[in-house]
């Protein structure tokens, strides 16, 4: 199903922003807030995983039911998971499209990756000491 993805700040994302290697940061920034009507259409329940495909790639996120987003829209906290699929075009403003991004979402049994697994996928080396 097609959705508009909005990214934004949450208090938990901010509280763990200096602890990017923590489980709490990964949990928060890999959450995809979705309206329950859309979850019924996709045949998924709370805390199940979805594969989200955007302009630049695919990432596995964990669904959280939310009445705060309208059907057709999903909200993902700022962070490495959302950015894994966002493109770098800025329309000559310096600012990429971090909001209202068209994405395709489907249920998946794939595991959600860790922050450093995503970084390794892009050519980085984990610092795990």
């Amino acid at each position, binding site marked *: 199903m097609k959705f508009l993805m909005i990214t934004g*700040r949450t208090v938990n994302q901010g509280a763990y922003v*200096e602890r*990017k290697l923590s489980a709490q940061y990964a949990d928060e920034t890999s959450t995809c807030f979705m309206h329950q009507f859309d979850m019924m259409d996709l045949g998924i329940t709370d805390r199940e995983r979805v594969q989200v495909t955007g302009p630049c790639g695919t990432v596995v996120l964990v669904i959280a039911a939310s009445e705060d987003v*309208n059907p057709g829209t999903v*909200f993902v906290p700022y962070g490495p998971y959302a950015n894994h699929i966002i493109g770098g075009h*800025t329309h000559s403003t*310096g600012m990429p499209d971090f909001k209202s991004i068209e994405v395709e979402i489907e249920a998946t049994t794939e595991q959600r990756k860790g922050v450093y697994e995503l970084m390794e996928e*892009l050519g980085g*080396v984990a610092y795990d000491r």
Partner: protein
Amino acid sequence: MIVKDVVCPFCGCLCDDVEVTVEDDRVVAVDNACTLGTSKFLGDHRLPGPIRRDGNGWKDISYDEAIRYAVDMLLDAERPLLYGWSSTHGEAQCVGVHMAELVRGVIDNTTSVCHGPSILAIQEVGHPGCTLGVVKNRADLIIYWGCNPIDAHPRHLSRYTRYADGFFLENAFRDRTVIVVDVRKTETANIADEFVQIRPGGDYAVLSALRAIVRGKTDTIPRSVSGVPREQLLRIARRCKEAKFGAFYFGQGITMTRGKYKNVRNAIELVDELNRHTKFTISAMRGHYNVYGSNEVNTWMTGYPFGIDFARGIAFYNPGETTAIDVLARRECDACLIVASDPAAHFPRPCVEHLAEIPVVQIDPYANATTAFCNVQIPVAVTGIDAAGTAYRMDGVPLRIRKVIESGYPSDEEILSRMYAMIQEVRSE
């Protein structure tokens, strides 16, 4: 020991009433700060010392070796990018600008991915703003548009708006109206007197409709604009015109979405229009605690607030070309110095992919997502905890940020000054 009146180095509110309890040069308790500030003061897991990437692993190196590596990287580069700067003190930012000029690099701060579009709009039509104190004491109408202070600036509401006392308001909580405009029903929307929910990407149209209504052109408004009923638009416009003093705060809800700086320009022009009827101001909810300072420092040193390219030997500014996202996405820079920021977590994928292909040095107290792309990382003191310096609040008021503990880590300014001196030495030969 309890240290009073500490300035919180998290968001642009720079709350200056925080109390920090220190024992044996460790912060053990924090009072008055929000969740964000408290977690920063109590932050642990600092990187113990400089590290260098060694194949698929890491090895410890000395500060001297790390600084030498960073200097050589910048001297060898043809088009270095110096990025970050918003979570450090102004004194360090000054050294950064001097260094960028000397190595003929591009220097950009996090503004380009937060309120860069707001600054572009302000450069076009001006900024009818005021300090937070004026809003606290006078404003009887607050609009939060595309921002969610309960999550991003938690004490903005208690110190300056919804829950704050006001000198010229008899009963501030009762006399102040709060309107929230957003595409989703945020926590802030839940405490508003009125919530206006617009369709994603509809900000420009709704702002234009409000401008038309304020001008008296109500007949031109359709039954609904981007999901907002005509009646609600008429009511909001009336409330704005009837207010004695209105304050419009906006966030990344309008800078990051379609229209970008044109949305902000429209919002400023709405406020301009409202000033024909009453007093109204508009300001951006700045995120990093010293992102405003990075704009100030860059502007007084180069004439431009962010995205400055010294390749020509003079300061050149063209957002969309000289901004970090564009320089990385075009795979243009051949080295990157990152100071007090984490672009690997916050930049779109193509930019991060390019970071993996070039030498990167990061100056930051913590291991973060960008660490994975570093050749060298140099840990430093955290300004506001173990380093002092100057920062600018979101309303442009500079405050002295205090040091509350001694950690032994060098400050950003010390590391950058050493690097700058070494680069100067080579360049003067």
